[in-house]
């Protein structure tokens, strides 16, 4: 169902763009290809890794560290990984699904995803150059807290 929606959206977009400006449409397609080509090597790696993880790591191990009954401690582990890691979403989401299929809890995965996207320890110096240290500390700190809030909401709504 999602697939039909995505292809429909893309087709509508291209059609709209084409009627407005052919050159821009062509340019868009070129950019699309360039972006796709750019992430493909990293993508191939993650696909292979997922295959290996699923075959080699036991679901019991995942459940022990990130399972639903690990509660807050599992969430803290997930938050730390998410804050420190610099993984693009293209890779994080398939990975999240893999660990969830293997027994990770929804709240633990949700904390990981939100922290990964909003908290960025590695790029904090860059961010401090843009604003100042106070802004960076507050933005990342509040984002980290917020990751837990989102996880609890998701646990209630989806879990």
């Amino acid at each position, binding site marked *: 169902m*999602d*697939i039909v929606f*995505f*292809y429909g*959206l*893309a*087709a509508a*977009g*291209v059609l709209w*763009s084409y009627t407005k400006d052919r050159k*821009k449409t062509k*340019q*868009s*397609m*070129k*950019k*699309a*290809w360039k*972006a*796709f080509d750019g992430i493909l*090597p990293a*993508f*191939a*790696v993650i*696909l*292979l890794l997922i*295959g*290996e993880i*699923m*075959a*080699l790591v036991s679901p019991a191990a995942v459940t022990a560290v990130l399972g639903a009954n690990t509660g807050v401690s599992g969430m803290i582990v997930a938050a730390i990984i998410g804050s420190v890691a*610099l993984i*693009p*979403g293209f890779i994080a*989401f398939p990975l999240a699904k893999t660990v*969830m299929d293997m027994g990770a809890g929804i709240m633990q*995965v*949700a904390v990981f*995803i*939100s922290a990964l*996207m*909003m908290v*960025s320890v590695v*790029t904090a110096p860059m*961010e401090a*150059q*843009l*604003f100042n240290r*106070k*802004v960076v500390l507050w*933005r990342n700190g*509040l*984002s980290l807290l*917020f990751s837990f*809030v*989102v996880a609890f*909401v*998701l646990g209630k*709504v*989806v879990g």
Partner: protein
Amino acid sequence: MAAFKRYKWALLLLLLDVAVYFWNQSLGISIFMQTTDSFMQMLSFIPPVFIILGLLDTWVPREKVVSHLGPGTGIKGMALSIFLGLANAGPLYAAFPIAAVMLKKGSSLFNVILFIGAWATLKVPMFMFETQFLGGSFSVTRWICSLIGISFIAFVIDRLLSDAEKEAIYVKHQES
């Protein structure tokens, strides 16, 4: 040769898979099945995501929008800042240079922080990925929560900073 270099890690892992197959046949087959499975799943929805990405990139006029994000632009400025952030796909650090331009052109600090937040967590292509892998109820719930969350965070930080601190940030980005 360049292609070989780009895919060296993938090739290495592939080699590892082959080695595993010779060491333990059933494990090798199970790896192979899992990998093709996720590969097919990926191929089935990635093309439209990237097409939308390309369209957003050429049709969203960043420079023009930025000059409408100053203090006092209210809801319209907020909506534009969020839109600027979500119509993207790059990593967070790719947002910083754009945020610097926003500051230089006088966008309010609230709007710039909102933009960073939207870029970090509301991006449309990522939302599509998330929907595909974790399901619509997960992605939609998280998206709505995040929208509220980033607005709240931007508001709090805006309140926490004194006028002098804000001024100091703008001074850093002034054209010399």
